[in-house]
């Protein structure tokens, strides 16, 4: 599953790191005991699940502040527990719904970007300029 996730993420040009835990995020003054945190430059969010078919992370949006936090981080780390990886978007969604009853799930597969001017790709429009997936062993 992890290999497939990395392969698909590479196809979309998104970086993936396999790590034991997300403690290194503390170096950015982020509180990793929370479900999400951000300062202007760096933020992180813990995903409920991931889909390998598209290298997407599923995060629950429990409140408006959380959504804003995701959108305002320049670089957003998204941690996905290895055991929550599923093949399809549907399977990942149903797992996320099992784990959390929130009514709004956001699938994130890449940075905020546009190619609206002459098909030239520019990253960082109304959301993060860079997304990095962190596949973790922790449960």
């Amino acid at each position: 599953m992890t290999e497939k996730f990395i392969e698909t993420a590479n196809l979309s040009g998104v970086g993936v790191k396999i790590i034991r835990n997300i403690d290194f995020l503390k170096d950015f003054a982020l509180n990793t005991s929370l479900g999400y945190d951000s300062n202007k430059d760096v933020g992180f969010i813990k995903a409920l699940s991931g889909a390998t078919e598209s290298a997407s992370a599923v995060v629950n949006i429990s409140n408006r502040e959380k959504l804003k936090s995701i959108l305002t981080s320049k670089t957003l780390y998204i941690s996905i527990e290895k055991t929550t990886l599923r093949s399809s978007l549907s399977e990942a969604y149903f797992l996320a719904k099992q784990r959390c009853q929130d009514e709004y799930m956001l699938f994130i597969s890449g940075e905020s970007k546009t190619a609206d001017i002459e098909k030239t790709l520019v990253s960082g429009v109304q959301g993060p300029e860079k997304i990095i997936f962190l596949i973790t062993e922790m449960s």
Partner: protein
Amino acid sequence: MKKTEEVFCNDQFLQNALNRAQKSYFEKRRKLEKVFDFEKFKNEIRDIKEKNVKNFEENILFLLNVLRSRGFEVFVAKDSDEALSFFYNILSKKGVKKVVKSKSLTTEEIDLNSFLEKNHITPVETDLGEWLVQLNKEKATHMTAPAIHMSKEKILDFLNQKFNANLKLDIKEMVDFCKNEINKEFDNTNCGIFGANAVTKDGTFFIVSNEGNIQHVLNHDINICIVGIDKIVESVDEAFKIVSFLPKNATGQVITSWIDVFTRPPGDEFFVILLDNNRSKIAKEEKFDKILNCIKCGACQMACPVYTTVGGQLFRGETYAGPIGILLSYMENYNFMNELSFLCTGCMACDEVCSSRIPIQSLILEIKAKYERNNIIKKFAIKSMRNYRLLRAFISIANPYFKSGIKMRKFKFLRDEFGLSFRTLPAINKDSFDIIKTKSSKIGLFAGCSTNIFYDEVGKDLIRLSNFLNIDIEIINQSSCCGAAALYNGLKADAILQAQKTIKDLEKFDKILFLDPHCAHMVQRDYNEFFGIDFSDRVVDAGFYFAEFLKNCKYKFIPLNKVLTYHYPCHLSRGMNQASLIEDFIKEKEERFSELDEKERCCGFAGTYSIMHKHISNKLVQRKIENIIKSNSEVVITSCPGCIMQISGALDVMNDRNISVVHFVSYLKNILGA
């Protein structure tokens, strides 16, 4: 229309922008096609859409009940007026003076922005492309790339003017500027308006996006979603299938950066408008119900040679542009369907890329028949093609006047009027080719009008070839044109009459060879559609037939030993899927074969299209010739007399005598020394 076509064709900024967009799209798409099974996806999307269109009423009722049970206000708008009135009621009740918008395609259908402005409510588009076209008081010209028609230079000019800015011609700098301007607006309102890509009947909304603006729009106190009733699907699995394939087919992306999936958006209040606007009516129309399979990916626009030549400012209805724009405009009851539908060349590039296998080209032909627009002379000419005796008489009379081609070099007006300024037409035969007597055989040759009128040498080459190979072929003495010219010009009743006569000519043969793939495709596909007679086992392109035959024989070939290339005729490649075998055959024989860039792109002939839309036709053939020149070819081989006429005629005007254009059958005869 004609003058405008010329202006768009000569707009170099537009040409550059569209070329870049098309090139980038297909590069990305081809990479993904190697990883994902696009054909399987297309079948699945078609099945999902067809099933849900059949269950329209049930789905809508179910969804209404679910959403209302959650306490949302839901409206079903039968048309634009009702939808606008719902918007007005909500916004005026809530005292909203400004709204931010995203996923605006459906709101464009009801022209929401103009309505809001008239009612002193400011709409602000937040997708960068939508914002640019709104700012420039234009309309979006592509489903997924609204500002595709705008060059960076044009954008820079008006940004600097409008905002008194001093930006440089740097796309990153321009995007940063735009996003900051858009970003200011999110905090200036408490209301977001958006559309959705799919909604399940149990009320789960799916929205795909890349920029992150949608999440900002959703993050308001009041949310209003407007969605066409064609977007309702039965299950989450079906919705995921759609949002998974949509970006792959639309932009060559594995997936969009964001997919919002919610049963309740953030914010305090949620209003839903389900828009019918003729959808339930079209769902009951046989054949046209397939229009509702569209998932609005815009791939057909990127593939269309006409759209990528003139763009979506010209090739559009009220809301939608390009090939699918013709179908959706028909659904919208657009007033000028005759002009819009006749912009299609019939090349089927749209069919090939459609996400849900909508037979776009066939439906456009149906629309042409409903809104037929031919002048009396053209109509008379096409109608009289069902009387081949008359046509033969015309050939004999015209021959002395056009022995060396139809050029009109002394008559500028006529030359311009008949599209002879960019392309001459060949000499008219002394006699119709099909009067040549041959012995009876179970294999027939249907030469077609182009060979009978212009290219008897190609027909004679086929006879020489078949004699050489000891294959008895009977030349069919035609009673009529096959009907293709009539059908593609909207004269369907005449096409059927001509087809009825032709069927009698064809009945006795086990195998029918065609020198013109347009005729072959007509007999194979459209006769089946007209009469339910399946000719597919009997119809074969002549070149394909010989190439297949020669696979198992040991003949000596003498290659031309020149740099040569092969152009794919639309009806042979996309219509009958027989072009690649011919190209492979040539490649195998000729060491100096040079593959043609955009070999499948239409050359712009399409019969009378090259006269009625000469500027577009000219642009298309020029691009074909640029590619031929790039291939360094001395010989262009193709399998369609129409393509030969267009390419060699354009080369003739350019005085380029170094490149010859030949029919594959003639080439085959030559390399066999027949």
